């Protein structure tokens, strides 16, 4: 078992595909917590989030042969959760409206504050009050520790767009969250 734990996600996927189905449990163990938090940040509902994660992991298993092992499994599974969560959001229409003409101020203070771990809970709370298109990359970057490239792969947007959304998200966080 300890040997298995040393394997990369992609190596485990190869083994699952070549008939070692039980190893899929390792993948589930590795990702369920992260995915649940990610989904909960998108749908703001723990029950829905756990359904989304379960459906996504089932979908991932069914389509495992379609995954290219030269790419990152984590981006692939996050993408599936993203799609499932977006379908759920569309169904419930709970998404916060996008504020295009927001009055932005300096982002200096919030960036500094953001990097301090003790503010994580406050930040998570604040994430819920900004539009999803901005909160999602922010949560992937700071909470799930994804790189810009991985965020680009998960959200299927160019890296430049990721950077723009991140910058706007920080400004929104400052504007909304510093009030609270």
């Amino acid at each position: 078992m300890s040997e298995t734990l040393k394997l990369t996600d992609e190596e485990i996927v190869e083994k699952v595909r070549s008939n070692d189905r039980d190893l899929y449990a390792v993948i589930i163990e590795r990702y369920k917590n992260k995915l649940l938090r990610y989904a909960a940040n998108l749908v703001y509902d723990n029950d829905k989030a756990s359904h989304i994660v379960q459906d996504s992991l089932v979908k991932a298993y069914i389509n495992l042969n379609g995954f290219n092992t030269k790419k990152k499994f984590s981006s692939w599974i996050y993408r599936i959760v993203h799609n499932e969560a977006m379908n759920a959001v569309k169904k419930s229409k709970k998404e916060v409206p996008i504020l295009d003409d927001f009055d932005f101020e300096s982002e200096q203070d919030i960036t500094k504050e953001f990097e301090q771990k003790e503010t994580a809970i406050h930040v998570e709370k604040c994430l819920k009050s900004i539009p999803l298109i901005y909160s999602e990359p922010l949560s992937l970057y700071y909470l799930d520790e994804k790189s810009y490239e991985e965020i680009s792969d998960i959200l299927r947007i160019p890296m430049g767009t990721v950077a723009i959304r991140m910058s706007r998200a920080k400004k929104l966080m400052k504007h909304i969250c510093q009030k609270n």
Partner: protein
Amino acid sequence: MSKELKNIADNIMDQIHEEKIKMRPKAYFIAGSILTFVGLVSSVVVSVFLVGLIRFSLRTHGPMASYRFDQILSSFPWWAPVLAIVGLVVGIWLLRKYDFSFKVNFKIVIIGFILAVIVGGWFIDSVGLNDVLIRRGPMQGMMRQYMQDNNIQGGQGGGQRWDKNFEK
């Protein structure tokens, strides 16, 4: 929450063991990729061909365009631009399915795709590839019907020809 998480793992593994969920075979994904590629190529070919046909149709009516405007309206193959647009839309939709597509600005991809189809249509019309298509290509039935309906003669001989010599 932790109970739910435990359930997630157990539920999924139970479904796998009971074979309620099964992996789709590799062939399914290979077939999907091939069909997507074939669909994309077909939509490009059809669009290019129809753009060539539209250009040809406009040209066959010769000079004095205003005098012949009614003629153009009555004999113009209106289905061609409609099909060309459908081909383009399908092509763009299929293009979006490719991995690289989100990494580049999609507006540029769409503009590039449309320009390529228009330039391709213009090119095959200019070099006379249309004539080859009339005689041998898969579209020959469609083209012959259009030419018969509008009293246009292809290839050698009199009447209007679908090649660059007609312009001379």
